[in-house]
């Protein structure tokens, strides 16, 4: 009896809750760390990026108006679904990073735990970042954090899973949607993550994943008038980062600058969440 031939996966993009190929029809070869062929990944184009922004705008409407409790549960659900597919993530990370099984397990566990950590923040942010303000007059005055809107992000080139989750989760927790370019050379854990997102009650369009070349797509996203913020964490080319920040000035986008050599295992703190929230202050007179 002949050995069974395995069924291999076609790796596609993740846009608006669906898994389309790149409209450009392009793919690129992804190799293991030892150079052997692993898969072909979709190479997203400028048009794909624009479609993703369209989906993300719809996504943030539903997501930011969901209750904080609901968002927290959905983010926690992502951790639950990932836990169920832990062996696949370990295999993906091992293939991508060429690390030992134990190192891969450590990264996957940290990534799952990171979702749990951020899930808990969803219904606490307003209390920690918001305030009741004692103005000098007969007014009730309070400030609350709100989502910035659509964020375009570049995940770090290393830590193909943990780095990606560490960029995506803090953007989502306040109600933003995201268009993210994962590690170009190690994109497959991102697509496995997309399969978890698609089955975790994350509304369509809230997360959009574009595999390919950040240097090709980001200039369009940094200029795009319907993108509210850009996260350049994973941009390693200084000249590109500067150019993107300059483009972002066109519509006064919020910019988080590159962060080379970040320790993804460290306590993330609130810094990333703060980068992508707005403070809204509401006044009302008091009287009878």
């Amino acid at each position, binding site marked *: 009896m002949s050995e069974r031939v395995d069924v291999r996966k076609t790796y596609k993009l993740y846009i608006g809750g669906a898994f389309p190929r790149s409209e450009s029809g392009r793919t690129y070869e992804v190799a293991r760390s030892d150079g052997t062929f692993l898969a072909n990944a979709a190479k997203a184009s400028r048009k794909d990026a624009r479609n993703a922004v369209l989906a993300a705008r719809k996504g943030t409407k539903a997501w930011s108006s969901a209750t904080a409790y609901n968002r927290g549960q959905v983010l926690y659900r992502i951790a639950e679904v990932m836990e169920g597919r832990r062996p696949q993530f370990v295999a993906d990370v091992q293939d991508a990073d060429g690390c030992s099984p134990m190192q891969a397990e450590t990264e996957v566990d940290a990534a799952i735990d990171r979702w749990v950590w951020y899930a808990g923040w969803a219904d606490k942010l307003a209390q*920690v*970042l918001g*305030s009741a*303000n*004692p*103005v*000098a*007059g007969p*007014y009730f*005055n309070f*400030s609350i954090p709100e989502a*910035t809107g659509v964020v375009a992000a570049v995940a770090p080139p290393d830590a193909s899973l943990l780095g990606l989750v560490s960029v995506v989760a803090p953007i989502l927790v306040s109600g933003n949607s995201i268009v993210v370019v994962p590690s170009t050379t190690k994109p497959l854990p991102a697509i496995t993550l997309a399969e978890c997102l698609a089955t975790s009650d994350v509304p369509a369009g809230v997360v959009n994943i574009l595999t390919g070349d950040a240097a090709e797509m980001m200039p369009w996203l940094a200029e795009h008038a319907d993108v*509210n913020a850009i996260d350049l964490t994973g941009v390693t080319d*200084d000249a590109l*980062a*500067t*150019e993107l*920040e*300059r483009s*972002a*000035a*066109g*519509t*006064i986008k*919020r910019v988080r*600058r590159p962060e080379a050599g970040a320790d993804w295992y*460290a306590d993330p*703190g609130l*810094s990333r969440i*703060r980068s992508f929230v*707005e*403070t*809204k*202050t*509401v*006044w*009302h*007179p008091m009287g009878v």
Partner: protein
Amino acid sequence: MTFEYAPAPESRSIVDIADSYGLFIDGAFVDTIDGAQFKTVNPATEEVLSSITEAGAEDVDRAVRAARRAYEDVWGPMSGRERSKYIYRIARLIQERSRELAVLETLDNGKPIRESRDVDLPLVAAHFFYYAGWADKLEHAGFGPSPRPLGVAAQVIPWNFPLLMLAWKVAPALAGGNTVVLKPAETTPLTALAFADICRQADLPPGVVNILTGAGATGRALVEHPDVDKVAFTGSTEVGRQIMKGVAGTTKRLTLELGGKAANIVFDDAPIDQAIEGIVNGIFFNQGHVCCAGSRLLLQESIADEAIASLQRRLGTLRLGDPMDKNTDVGAINSAAQLERIAELADSGDAEGAMRWTAPCQLPDRGYWFPPTVFTGVTQAHRIAREEIFGPVLSVLTFRTPDEAVEKANNTPYGLSAGIWTEKGSRILWMAARMRAGVVWANTFNRFDPTSPFGGYKESGFGREGGIQGLGPYLNTDTMDYDNAIRIGFGVSEVAR
């Protein structure tokens, strides 16, 4: 019937304006190295008030170096408790000299003395008083256990609230342990120069606050100086864009408070008399030279005619004229250039088919004046509904349903403020949640307080001024920079101060 008012002018004898001013660098007024001189005028009379120095690039460098030295040697290492007392001193000095400062502000800016006396100056003092108390409590502000200063802050402010904008910038910067180089607007430098004298009276260490007068070129040289750690700008969105491009690729922190085109939304159940007062205050306060002005009035269709009639009746009672007169409601436009811009945009309203109504009032012969103006029949495509006019010009649009009001209110690249008028509490909160704006005034408008964060969504900028949120932009909370803090002389115990 109409009432005649006897003139009630405030005396200007309380101010002593010098013929010319140098630059305030390292604790003293000095002559420019490579700059020039320009005149500042009273916009209500076109009288020249003084000759002001336009700082050159070398002056900027000298001021930044003074600020750096003061940061490293004195202000950065000083305990929060001691810093706090200096800032309290400043608050008290402003209270003591508030009459003088109010008169100076009105002479240089053109705003009614009633506003500079009753709004600007009390808020200026309150702002310093509020942030003074933060200086020794930073570790309790929620930015981590050991927030540190950023270093030298370059601050560029506009002409509409000259001293108040200075307070919004300088107070949180000093509380956080930063030193400051501030450039006031070219048309309103006098109160910033008076503030330099207050720093002297407070015995503030030299170099902690430096004041560089000048125009756009001075501002550009300042924000692009390589030894600046933090840039804060309030002004037009266009200049904000240029500054953002200028700091791209550096490690400078940036906050921007830019333009606005706020919707002031009035529902049919609103308390109409209160709403009319709010509309008037929303757009004609400070001659409409307010970035958060309620410049787009959205009236529910069923009450539109009645509200417009009431509004016009009320505007007929506004008194326009001598800003130094205590009865004056509407003062002078700040400059000839601004007057031209307002007139050009108002003309576009005529050209595009909106209907202009002008308040019946006599304009003085000299100075820069524009009468309160209301455009009805405005569509969302009109320039007067899209562009910031920054003058006493109100554009009126209508809506039928709450959803339509939300859609129209948010249909702008700006997002600084919004107003909501209705008696229904649930509708206020429903509307407030949907406004893409940083400040929402419900059944009130144009209220400000040092404890209340102010700042925009979208192209109105980012970062907040005021409140606990206003401290963040002046603090370094990144663990990555910890080593740098040690290197420039902060001991470990001091880092936690």
